[in-house]
């Protein structure tokens, strides 16, 4: 009931009942009614605490990069590297979106990069359709590489029991495979829009952008810190925090309100509340239902089943609750099971534009007639990419686990 209330509030976005408040209230009711002991709730919150802190640091780091002009510079690089050719621009967008998603998380790609991609394509001028779709799709499918690429990865990072570098090494092949499939499908589906203007490119070559070295240096050092974290014995979250603080202090400091806004406190509270509610649902039978659905072990069929069930669940209830529900069950077959789950919950959301069936139905009822996103085209693209990617990325995960 509490889980349903949280999800409904997050999907419906009522003004009078913000999703974070509903999540906190639901968590409080769960504890007050005895559905979850106070001790259980406290351990759920303290288990999620570092992850939420990690996420906040990443959000602040990404916003610092925006203020330093990293994304504008990426736009300039994409424009100059494209030489006015739509297909080359799509290649540049793939590089920028895959890199941004991997390093600064999918939120950075969605909120900060995709509008820049639109502006870059529109100013070329070329039809921005394939480039914008690429940004949206890669935010999900290119979020497999690093533990910091997606909140779902952060939530499952501890459970998978791998170091930061080993996570990256094992997920590198699935990540490349997922990006490769996106390229093959997008360049075919949007072949019309990627055709070059007759007579070659007409656009004047844009000026080479000035790269914000400080911000890129801080991001580079933060990444190096992540890589060294297991060797020096310091948790990666501290390197993320150090990076966020350094970048904030080193530039003209933003106002406190802007800084807090960048960290999205309501979202962090929502995640904590949802964590408590899912914990309670898990104790009261949800975990055993999921356990009965999921095979254990690291055989290829078992990994494929985990990825498929996770993808379906992510599309039914959204990938955040899906991760919280599944991770507790698959941690028994870590790391293979956990990583296969991540392929499911990260790639799966591309199947429906809105992220879950519930949202899709809701939005269709509310916005039946307005000029919104072409959901049919998004669904078609999802149908062409997601099932293939799930199978191919999981198979390459299985291969990586055998070899590495």
């Amino acid at each position, binding site marked *: 009931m509490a889980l349903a209330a949280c*999800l409904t509030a*997050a*999907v419906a976005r009522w003004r009078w009942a913000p*999703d*974070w408040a509903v*999540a906190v209230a639901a968590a409080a009711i769960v504890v007050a009614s005895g559905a979850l002991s106070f001790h259980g709730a406290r351990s759920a919150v303290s288990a999620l605490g570092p992850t939420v802190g990690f996420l906040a640091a990443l959000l602040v780091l990404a916003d610092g990069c925006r203020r330093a002009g990293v*994304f504008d510079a990426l736009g300039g690089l994409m424009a100059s590297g494209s030489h006015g050719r*739509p297909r080359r621009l799509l290649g540049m967008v793939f590089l920028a979106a895959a890199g941004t998603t991997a390093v600064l998380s*999918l*939120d950075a790609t*969605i*909120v900060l990069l*995709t*509008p820049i991609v*639109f*502006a870059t394509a*529109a*100013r*070329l*001028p*070329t*039809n*921005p*359709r394939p480039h*914008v*779709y690429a*940004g*949206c799709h890669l*935010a999900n499918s290119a979020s497999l590489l690093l533990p910091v690429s997606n909140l779902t990865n952060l939530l499952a990072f501890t459970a998978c029991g791998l170091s930061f570098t080993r996570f990256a090494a094992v997920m590198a092949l699935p990540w490349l495979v997922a990006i490769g499939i996106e390229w093959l499908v997008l360049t075919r589906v949007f072949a*019309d829009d990627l*055709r*070059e*203007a*007759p*007579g070659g490119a*007409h656009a004047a070559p844009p000026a080479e952008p000035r790269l914000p070295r400080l911000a890129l240096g801080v991001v580079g050092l933060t990444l190096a810190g992540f890589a060294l974290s297991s060797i020096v014995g310091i948790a990666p979250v501290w390197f993320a925090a150090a990076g966020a603080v350094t970048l904030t202090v080193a530039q003209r400091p933003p106002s406190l309100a802007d800084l807090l*806004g960048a960290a*999205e406190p*309501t*979202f962090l509270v*929502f*995640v904590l509340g949802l964590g408590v509610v899912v914990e309670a649902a898990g104790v009261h039978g949800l975990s055993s239902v999921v356990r009965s659905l999921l095979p254990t072990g690291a055989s290829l069929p078992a990994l494929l089943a985990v990825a498929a069930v996770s993808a379906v669940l992510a599309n039914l209830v*959204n*990938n*955040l*609750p899906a991760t919280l529900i599944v991770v507790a069950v698959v941690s028994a077959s870590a790391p293979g099971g956990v990583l296969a789950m991540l392929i499911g919950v990260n790639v799966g*959301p591309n199947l*429906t*534009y*809105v*992220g*879950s069936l519930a*949202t*899709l139905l809701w939005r269709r009822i509310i916005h039946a007639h307005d*000029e*919104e*996103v*072409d959901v049919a*085209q*998004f669904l078609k693209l999802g149908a062409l990419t997601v099932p293939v990617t799930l199978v191919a990325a999981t198979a390459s995960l299985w291969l990586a686990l055998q070899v590495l």
Partner: protein
Amino acid sequence: MRALIWITEPSWRACIDRARELLPAGAEVTILHVAATDVEALAEHPGPGRLGRHHRPPPGPSVREISDAEAQSLLGEAAQRFGRPAQTVARRGRVEREVLQASAGADVLVLARDGEPRREPKSVGRFQRFVIDHAGCAVVVVWSQDPPGLDAMRWPPHLR
């Protein structure tokens, strides 16, 4: 004669040049560009299903402002290239529907094929195909590059 020239980013130069050659001097010409709002909506809300997130749009011009400015600039360049008196119209929405609605009072619609540069059905893009199929006026379909010769064409078996 009222003529509507529908221009798109990849082919507007060729489309304007051919229209200038084909349309009579006295024609009342309107040049049309349509911004696809479904793409704009996607660029602005690329992840609406992302539970619990309430992203603020980054500062700077909005997607809508960028799109409007680019449409105006393209139409301005096209009108200049046309070199004869012409009105320009920027519409927003689903592309094929907007073009059909804009062509309601026109006698002739000029458009570029915007598809494969070969003599085959795919030489007409999907929006162009819809417009040609449903237009109420005469439609002039121009190549945006020199078409390959007839000898390069792959004939269907019964015509070989």
